[in-house]
């Protein structure tokens, strides 16, 4: 029973991490119709920016996280406005461009920071324990940040004019532009919002796990899984799916073994896609 609860807690921590990643990924897909292959790159780079600010420059950790978010938002804004925007009509071209950009980012990190992991500890250590059940304080903080991010994204998407504009665009771009929405300004903004989230996630999660140039690869695969499961473009779906993925991964890995966990997860997602292609909470398949 204890290990069952412990596994549940692990699943929840995994879920928070995946939520933070999937929120940005799904925003970009929902609004721009773009599958962002570079998402993992923004995550890793956010981690390195935070590391640089916190460890090398000695800034306080929260400032470092903020810097990571802002710098990744800025980079995302530039990437969208100057590169992605030019091919936004053609979904295959956007795929190629984001894949290319990921390779460039990963290489840049490798060249600047080297291949080996630097020491980037989370400022809060310590673990809450109850018998065999434990939950590191760091994970609690990330859980808090995750909730804050969810609330923020909901507020932004459903309660502000910008959000209404973004949603209108995701429903019907020509109509939105006809209604005078400044799509050219909103696209980079939406993209920057998502990459900022990814950067912030990197800053929060890499000190708990590990920071190395290549850790973005698996982030991409899990963002894919989560978003497929939740339904592309659905914020609520992504949030639920992230926790489902986290829990399944945790329980499958604990009770079936490490590599079987991944297999279970992939197989499950494949089945869901076949049975319900729009995901758990997805809308009708978006015209792409």
């Amino acid at each position, binding site marked *: 029973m204890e*290990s069952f609860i412990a596994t549940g807690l692990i699943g929840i921590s*995994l879920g928070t*991490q995946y939520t933070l990643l999937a929120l940005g990924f799904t925003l970009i897909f929902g609004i721009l119709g773009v599958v962002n292959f570079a998402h993992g790159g923004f995550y890793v780079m956010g981690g390195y920016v935070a590391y640089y600010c916190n460890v090398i420059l000695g800034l306080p950790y929260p400032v470092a996280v903020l810097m990571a978010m802002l710098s990744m938002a800025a980079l995302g804004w530039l990437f969208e406005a100057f590169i992605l925007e030019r091919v936004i009509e053609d979904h295959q071209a956007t795929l190629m461009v984001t894949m290319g950009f990921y390779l460039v980012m990963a290489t840049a990190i490798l060249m600047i920071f080297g291949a080996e*992991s630097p020491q980037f500890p989370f400022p809060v250590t310590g673990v809450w324990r109850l018998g065999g059940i434990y939950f590191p304080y760091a994970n609690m903080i990330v859980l808090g940040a995750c909730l804050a991010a969810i609330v923020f994204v909901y507020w932004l998407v459903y309660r502000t004019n910008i959000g209404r504009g973004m949603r209108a665009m995701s429903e019907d771009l020509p109509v939105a532009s006809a209604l005078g929405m400044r799509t050219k300004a909103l696209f980079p903004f939406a993209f920057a919002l998502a990459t900022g989230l990814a950067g912030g996630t990197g800053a929060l999660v890499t000190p708990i*796990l*590990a920071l190395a140039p290549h850790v973005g690869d698996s982030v991409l695969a899990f963002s894919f899984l989560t978003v497929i499961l939740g339904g592309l473009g659905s914020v609520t779906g992504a949030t639920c799916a992230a926790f489902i993925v986290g829990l399944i991964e945790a329980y499958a890995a*604990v009770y079936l073994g*490490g*590599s079987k*966990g991944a297999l279970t997860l992939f197989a499950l997602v494949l089945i869901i896609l076949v049975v319900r292609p729009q995901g758990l909470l997805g809308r009708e398949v978006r015209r792409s």
Partner: protein
Amino acid sequence: MTIGLGRLVCGSLLASAGFVGAVSACELKIGVPAVLSGPAAQWGIALRGATEFVAKETMEEKRLVINGVACTVSVKSIDSKYSAEGAASATSALAAEGIKVIIGPVGSPEVTGFKPVATRNRMVAMVNSFAKNSIGPEWPTVFHIGPGPSGWAAPIIDVGLQRYKFKTAAIVAPNDQGGTDIASVNADIFKQRGVTVTEEYYQRGTTNFAPIVTRIMASNAEALDLASSPAGDAGIIVKQIRQAGFTGPIFRLGGPGTDEIARVAGGLDILKDFLWYEPVYMDDNMRALEQKYEKLMGSVRPENSDFFRWTFAARMMIKAIQAAGTIDNAEKIAAAMRTLPVEDEHIGKGYWIGQKFFGINQEMSYPFAIGVIQGGVKQPLIRAEAVSEK
């Protein structure tokens, strides 16, 4: 297309022209298929650094003289991408330049892709990889720079058993060749010593090891072996298993990288009780070698301590070439190598081994060291004698 083909043909003509020129002037070109990108890049960087250093050393000190002419030595390194076909294509590219002498590659999949191509192109090579079939009678010109855990896991486990009491152990490794080969060897050695072992494998690319840690905790293991898990992964595993309340000793019977593991885990305190295989015993000799590198190359040596083993391997190759008196006949160089004693100016004497494990006596065995961290404090390395099969 025609332009592309033209480029290829021209390139190859130029390459072969260069090769023809090379013979008369004695220009040795050493090929280095090294992983330079992705998670394993640090291994390749150590390999490349060592080979470049030995090339420069050989020239500066005129160590390679054939027919009275001091040879120039250059290094050509190509990214082998830690995959079978990456290594195969890198090796073919090296072959195209007429290169016959190879140092590398590092990883199991690379060596798998490398060997058929090297054999087809008659190359002599010093490879790494802990795979069970890294070398073998099928590949007579392929040598191994040093034993895998089959050679050194036993003495390290013995040190661990002296210091800590444990009857059960868990081994964690990635579920690919580089992981399973080593974990199974380690498991056998633990079992020989009466320790009950559970093996846990994870998918490469896993970022959060909490579920695997929970499994290990549930198995009531008293000791943990990280085997060949990449340093980054191993660091997270250590961090998370200590958070989960694991207090036993941790072994790292799969290669160097302790510094990186400590950085990722969050410091020596977290490692607490930790034992690992260190390729070399850091003594004055080794520090002299480090200084020599700095003086010659103008920078600090690559961080990964496999640098040392690659240096010994490259020097051995140069000696074999010198003894064979040819820079391009792989069979002759290999034959000469087999007759040479295993010895290096900095580390001293070693042995040829491998007959028992691989069926061919082409593995260099040098003294190594056992690293120990006890109670979060780094202890002096324990010098271990070279493993011998005699």
